[in-house]
Structures are given as structure tokens and as C-alpha cells.
């Protein structure tokens, strides 16, 4: 068994920041991560990091923009803390050596970004995330923080009182990929989940193969609900064969979208007569899919993004990296031919329910980064707001776990925060298939943290052995089924019948999952086993997304419902929670907090 004060699970931007802060506060901290830190998907971010640094700008404007962008589903305590602290975090990143792009006078450059009232996006070329990730990993190396890399965390070690708010997290169980060793990691002061996104719930995504929603699913099973999962951001211009993102920059510079009839679809079919290609991400994504659905897509799959008319000189000057992306990942020369693009899953707004310190309702269990939901992005994330989020909330959780925060949180979590129940029937059964699906430790009978941990390790050992020893089907089939139905039915268009279909398919997948087995008999680097375990996480998060989407009968932010084309503040100014509840999941709601310290945010129409 390994032992530390604070265990951080995941070493992307959020995990690294949390580890550094806990270390600064004197904690003995370790990072446990299934990928080596520099392989984390934070490295893929291109665009930038928002912070109100400019004299003429101010944090409250940033907060206001974020609240408006969230379509009033953000919580003011999280948004205010975020906008205030992002400034210091970005400057600190500069002090740590981040190679930001610069102005002539040597100061950090800031550029305009969608939804922002001021140019406040700092960046480092077109590789902002790469530089952020490496700069922060360098600081981890500098501090000698212990990293267990290629250790896959499979389960949290949590006591199992019946009310999740009474539970305590004492650590986690991890599997060393190289050797097949399963070990307990005892965390004296807390476990911080920073496991990133869940794009693998969809078959077309800008996310990495490793983005399988592990943290959300593990916390959910341990008692911390998932919040606002129905809010998924899709990006309208991703390459069809891989999901690699072609940035807004192309349309910003004048790139045009064409359908199979070579019509300029945004105008020809009236999707956005004013803004055309520059309309917001969700509008453009829906336009593209409508074209495909109505038979005007190319190869029934995608549309064309053409930039040739901009001329070679301008393209090379402004959009050179796009040329490389199209060439390397789609085999297309953007100077010569239009680039194929289609919408892809991009960012998950929802996640593990936590307060503004990243603390969940389970004592000692934290979540930060894309896997968490402190209600910062609400129903829609503004571009450039995720990277500063990693810094601000990574630091906050690290500080809190190290015992250096005295303030009480304002955002309530856990069952006590419930305001109303969802009172409809689910079209398919939810949650555990049978009672043998391992749930928590053991009826509250276990006494010491070590015992809780030992039991968790034992449960995982049995799970791994069962998967390895029995005969059965390949998890890849099950995962593909979930991905397919999510992409078909829970995309930018949401209709009641489709959402119901998705829930049925997910149920079917969950039942089939009872029959999966790992064919590779080896203990050495068994990725078959890793992916098989991840697939169960994919099923849990997919279910939460689909059910949350079915339950929310309104159009808010990224969540569009065919029958309900209005935002309905009277009914839905509230967060969706989805709790595992010992295998019988429960969907309920809690109120949004619009009351900030300085001002109260009044819901306004979100139009750009």
C-alpha cells in the first residue's frame, strides 16, 4: 500500500496545478495517472486562456460574460472566484516560464474570442494547451513531486454510510499498467480527481482516446452525483476521419461552408442570415447536420470548409497550422481543395458535483478540471475559459485538501441540496444490472481507513480476475454501441423519441457489458483490460447525459430540444443531479445561485 497526504488522480492541467498547490501548502502529495503527465489531453488545446489582465478590463466583466455565456446556469460563487483568480493564475504561469505570445513591448498578448466583451485571451501560438501542460509539469519536476505514471485508478476507497454526505474518501485503488500490480493508495487528507473529459462516449470527438469519464463515473459510484451532464458542447468544424479540431480561426478569416450542391449553406438555407459562418458553435453544428440529414451532405457525412479564396499568402500567414492539420490528419491540401468538416463532441460542461473549492459531498473527495462541475460553465462554456478553470480550481482544491482553507463554501452539495424530484418514468431501466455489480465498501461495518482501502483493493482484485479469467465478448463492441447511439440520438439535435431510444440502447449495452471478458491473458501492459474497465465508465456517463437531456424540457445553452424551443426560467433555472444511489439511480434538481457578493445576476436573453 502507498501512502500520502493528498493523492491527485490525473496529471493534465488541473491535476498538475492541484498537486503543486497542495505541495506549496506543505502536504506530501502524489500524482497517480494512467498516462504520463505530458501525454494528457490538455496538450491539445490550441486557442487560449482567458483572464482580465488589461487595465481597461476587469474581473467582473469577465464574470458577467461567463454568466451570460452559461445561459444563467452558472453559480455566482464559482464564477466570481474564477474571474478574480484567473488573473493571478495566468501571471503565475508566466512566472513559471510559459512561452506566451508577446507584444512589441514584451507584455503578454491578448486577443478577442467569442462571447467576450474585451480582448482577454492570452495564448502561446496555436499550441496554448501544450505549453501550459509542459510548463506545469516542469514545475512538478522542480518540486520533486512524486508521479506514479501509467497507473490506472479503477476505484475510490470510500466508507459507505447510507447518506453520501456522511461518507469519507480514504484513497483509491490503482493498477500499474506495466506490471499488472493492483495497489491501494491511502490518502490521509484527500483524493483530488482530475481525470478530464468523456468524449469517448461519442464516436466522433475532439477528445483523446483516454477521455473516458473515469473520474465522473468513479465518484458517482462512490456517492458524489454527476451534475448538469446534459450540457455537451459540440464543435462544428472537426475533420471527419479523426475528430481533429479545425479552429474557428478559419471561419474568422473568411472561410466558407458549402454543401454537396456547392451552395453556401448558412445563407442558402437561412440558418444564420446575419452572421453566416460566424454564427455560434451550436448554430453552425445544427446547420451542418441538417444538411446531411436532408441529403445535401457530402458522402452523406460532412460539408466542405473552403478557404482557397483567401489566397495562398494569407492562408500561410494566418492559418498555416490548419494546413498541416488537414494534410496530416485528413490527407487534404487546404490550398488546393476544400476541407471536409463535421460536428464533433468537444467539451463536457457537466461533471462531478462539487463546491467552489472542488470539494464533493463525500468528505475528502475532490474533483477539478473537465471532470468536475462547480457550475462555472453552466449550460455552455465560452472558448478560452476551460484552461484558466484548470488553474483556478486546481489551486483551490489543492489548498483545501492540504487544510489551508478556512472559509465555508457557499455552494451546497449532496442530497441535502435537493430542491425537487424528477417525477417521470425513465423509458429504460437505469443503474446496476444485478446486485453483484460491486457498489461500495460494506454496510458501514469497516472501521479504519486501512480496512476500507484493503476492502476496495480486494473488490478490484476480484473484478480484474473475473474479467481476465472468464470467456466472453469484446468490450469494443459494447463501447461502439454506446458511441453510436449517443452520436445519433444525443447530439446537437435532441428529440424525445431519440433520447428514449438512446436510453434503451445504453441499457442494452449495460446488459451486454455483463458478458465482456478480456482476451489478452497477460499481466504485462494489458490495454485490453484497461479499455474494458473504461467502457463501464463510458456507459455510466452516457446514461447520465441522455437521461438529463430527456428530463430537461427547454432550450438552454448547448441543450436544444425540438419540442421546447425556449429557455424556461420559471421551470428550469436549476441544476440537474444524477445520483448512483446504491445502484438505483435518482435524478433530481437543485437551485442555481445567481447571487454574487457584488451583484445579483439577472437572467437576460443570450444572443450574440
Amino acid at each position, binding site marked *: 500500500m502507498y501512502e500520502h497526504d493528498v493523492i491527485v488522480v490525473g496529471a493534465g492541467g488541473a491535476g498538475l496545478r492541484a498537486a503543486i498547490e497542495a505541495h506549496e501548502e506543505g502536504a506530501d502529495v502524489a500524482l497517480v495517472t494512467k498516462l504520463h503527465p505530458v501525454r494528457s489531453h490538455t496538450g491539445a488545446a490550441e486557442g487560449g486562456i482567458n483572464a482580465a489582465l488589461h487595465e481597461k478590463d476587469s474581473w467582473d466583466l469577465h464574470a458577467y460574460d461567463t454568466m451570460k455565456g452559461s445561459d444563467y446556469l452558472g453559480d455566482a460563487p464559482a464564477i466570481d472566484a474564477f474571474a478574480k483568480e484567473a488573473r493571478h493564475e495566468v501571471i503565475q504561469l508566466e*512566472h*513559471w516560464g510559459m512561452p506566451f505570445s508577446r507584444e512589441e513591448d514584451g507584455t503578454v498578448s491578448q486577443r478577442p474570442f467569442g462571447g467576450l466583451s474585451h480582448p482577454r485571451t492570452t495564448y502561446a501560438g496555436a499550441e496554448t494547451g501544450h505549453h501550459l501542460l509542459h510548463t506545469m509539469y516542469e514545475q512538478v519536476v522542480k518540486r520533486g513531486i512524486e508521479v506514479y505514471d501509467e497507473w490506472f485508478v479503477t476505484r475510490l476507497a470510500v466508507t459507505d454510510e447510507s447518506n453520501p454526505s456522511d461518507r469519507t474518501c480514504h484513497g483509491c485503488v490503482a493498477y500499474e499498467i506495466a506490471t499488472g500490480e493492483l495497489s491501494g493508495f491511502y490518502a490521509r487528507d484527500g483524493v483530488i480527481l482530475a481525470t478530464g473529459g468523456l468524449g469517448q462516449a461519442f464516436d466522433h470527438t475532439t477528445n483523446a482516446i483516454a477521455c473516458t469519464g473515469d473520474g465522473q463515473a468513479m465518484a458517482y459510484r462512490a456517492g458524489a452525483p454527476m451534475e448538469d451532464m446534459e450540457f455537451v458542447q459540440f464543435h462544428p468544424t472537426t475533420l471527419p*476521419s479523426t475528430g481533429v479540431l479545425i479552429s474557428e480561426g478559419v471561419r474568422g478569416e473568411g472561410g466558407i461552408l458549402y454543401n454537396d450542391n456547392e451552395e453556401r449553406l448558412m445563407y442558402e438555407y437561412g440558418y444564420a442570415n446575419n452572421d453566416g459562418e460566424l454564427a455560434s458553435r451550436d448554430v453552425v453544428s445544427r446547420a451542418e447536420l441538417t444538411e446531411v440529414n436532408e441529403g445535401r451532405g457530402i458522402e452523406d457525412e460532412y460539408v466542405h470548409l473552403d478557404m482557397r479564396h483567401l489566397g495562398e499568402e494569407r492562408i500561410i500567414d494566418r492559418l498555416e497550422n490548419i494546413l498541416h*492539420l488537414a494534410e496530416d490528419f485528413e*490527407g487534404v491540401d487546404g490550398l488546393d481543395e476544400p476541407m471536409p468538416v463535421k460536428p464533433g463532441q468537444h467539451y463536457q460542461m457537466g461533471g462531478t458535483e462539487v463546491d467552489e473549492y472542488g470539494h464533493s459531498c463525500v468528505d475528502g473527495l475532490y474533483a477539478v478540471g473537465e471532470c468536475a462541475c462547480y457550475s462555472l460553465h453552466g449550460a455552455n462554456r465560452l472558448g478560452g475559459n476551460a484552461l484558466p478553470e484548470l488553474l483556478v480550481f486546481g489551486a483551490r482544491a489543492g489548498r483545501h485538501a492540504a487544510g489551508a482553507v478556512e472559509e465555508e463554501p457557499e455552494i451546497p452539495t449532496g442530497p441535502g441540496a435537493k430542491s425537487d424530484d424528477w417525477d417521470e418514468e425513465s423509458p429504460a431501466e437505469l443503474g446496476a444490472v444485478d446486485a453483484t455489480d460491486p457498489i461500495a465498501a460494506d454496510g458501514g461495518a469497516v472501521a479504519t481507513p486501512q480496512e476500507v482501502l484493503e476492502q476496495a483493493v480486494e473488490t478490484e482484485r476480484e473484478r480484474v480476475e473475473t474479467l481476465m479469467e472468464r470467456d466472453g465478448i*469484446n468490450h469494443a463492441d459494447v463501447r461502439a454501441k454506446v458511441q453510436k447511439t449517443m452520436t445519433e440520438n444525443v447530439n446537437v439535435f435532441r428529440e424525445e423519441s431519440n433520447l428514449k431510444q438512446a436510453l434503451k440502447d445504453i441499457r*442494452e449495452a449495460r446488459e451486454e457489458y*455483463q458478458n465482456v471478458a478480456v482476451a489478452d491473458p*497477460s499481466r504485462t501492459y494489458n490495454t485490453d483490460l484497461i479499455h474494458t474497465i473504461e467502457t463501464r465508465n463510458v456507459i455510466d456517463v452516457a446514461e447520465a447525459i441522455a437521461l438529463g437531456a430527456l428530463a430537461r424540457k427547454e432550450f438552454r445553452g448547448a441543450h436544444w430540444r425540438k419540442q421546447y424551443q425556449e429557455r424556461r426560467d420559471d421551470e428550469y433555472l436549476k441544476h440537474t443531479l444524477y445520483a448512483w444511489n446504491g445502484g438505483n439511480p435518482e435524478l433530481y434538481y437543485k437551485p442555481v445561485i445567481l447571487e454574487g457578493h457584488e451583484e445579483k445576476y439577472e437572467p437576460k436573453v443570450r444572443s450574440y
Partner: protein
Amino acid sequence: MSTKIEEKPETETEADEQTSPGEQRRELKRERAAEREQQIQEELSEAEETVGIKVFRFDPEVADKEEPRFDSFTVPFFRGMSVLDALVYARDTYDSSLTFRHSCRQAVCGSDALFINGRQRLACKTQVSDLEWPIRIEPLPHQDVVKDLVVDMEHFYEQMHAVEPFFDPDETPDGELEEQRQTPENREKVKLSTRCIWCGACMSSCNIAAGDNEYLGPAAINKAYRFAMDEREGEDRKQERLRIVEQEHGVWRCQTQFSCTEVCPKDIPLTEHIQELKREAVKSNLKFW
């Protein structure tokens, strides 16, 4: 293709009365295998073209893989297909034990540097259409193979860590929201060196590194360059950095063969950076004598 499970194991007892869950699973597995076989045939015959890949296999723990061997797979070809796509297809369709690292699929995570048709390349960034077929895929040479295409990266990481790879300025501005200044020219100077994704392709391609295990290697030296040339760090720190790279197993080992520069997927002028550090080291030694 979708298969409904006809017999749901509703409860343990009910299942026991008919067939055991184990038998049901095996039955399902056989059904799946048959379906899969059919699906593969369909996909292969629908595809206008198929591509063959020959993949290195080795697992010290599994009886028939203890001796390294090559397995061949036939994969339907589509436009835009990368070598990584071909590997994923082979794994998910034919053999789930086929093992390789990969994550981002877009040349930023550095997981999938492999030896493809005799050259170090990132599988995700290499288009199948750009290669001769059948494609031969091996793990990075000069590194210990853990299993199939996975090599032990520990030594590479140690070398990266050996150059004190972290920014270390003498002081930072006092103002809470004040950044250090850096000229756009200086930023431009270090720009290419900061692009490294730690893939290890350069190290694997380098003859010197193959012969001298302690040689820092191109990536680590480039990392040192990234900080030594950054004007935000002080002059003393720069001198310390030069001392690190001019040690016995440092820059002077490089014989400017350019193999690292040729294979680097991020187009970092590694050899040039090494040469520049040599010159800087000479300059600074002259100064101190």
C-alpha cells in the same frame, strides 16, 4: 449491426435453471465471433482497397509470444486513414491483445512514435497513403520492448529530467499582476524548441545514443536549449545550464548526423540547437579563462 440479447440473465436463479451465465457468455462470444467474421468480410469487400500491415509482436509472459514475431492484418483502407487508424482497426477487429500506446490522435501527446517502414514516425501523423504497402510496424529501436509496440520510456524520461527542465529565473516582478518582459524576438528564438512532445523518436534514431547509454540525447539537449536561450532567466543560470550540457555525455558527443532532425515530428531543428549550444559553451569557456 445490433444484437439483442435474447436470454437476459434476469436473476441468478433463473439463469441457473436454464444455462449457466458462463455458458451464456461463451455462447454470446461465439455468436459475436461469427457476426464479426461476417462483418469483416463485408467491410473488406465493400472497401475499394485494403491495406496489409505487419506488426511486431512480443510478450514475455505469453507462451506463443515470448519469441518475437510479426503478425499480418488486412485492413479496409479509407481516405485520410493514418497508421494509427489501421492499428486500432486491427486491434478492435482481430486481436484485442495487440498493444500500443496512443491517446490524442493529433500529434500532441507523443505516445505513438513507432518504427514504421524503417523510420521513426508518429503513427497518428502518418497517412497510410503516403507509405509503401504492406506497412511494417515495429517498436522504437534502441529501447527495451515491454510488449508488442510498447517500449520502456523510463530512460528517456531520466535524460529529460537530467537537464533541470524547469524555468528558473533569478527573480520575478513584485507587482501581483506583473509579468516578466520578453521580446517577441526572443520568444521566436525559443519557439521551435518549446514544441517538443517527448515522443522519443529522435533519441531512437540517434547512433550516438545507441552506443552511449548516458548520452543526454537530442530531446534533453533541446530542452536545455529552450531555457538557456530564454532571456527571462539570468546569465548565471545560463552558465549553469551550459555546464550541464557540455559534460562528458553532453553536446560534444553529437556528430551532426542530423538523423534526429530528420525524424522529429515537430520539425525542431535539433542538430542546429545542439551546434548552437556547443558554440555558446565555447564562448563562455573563453570568457572564464
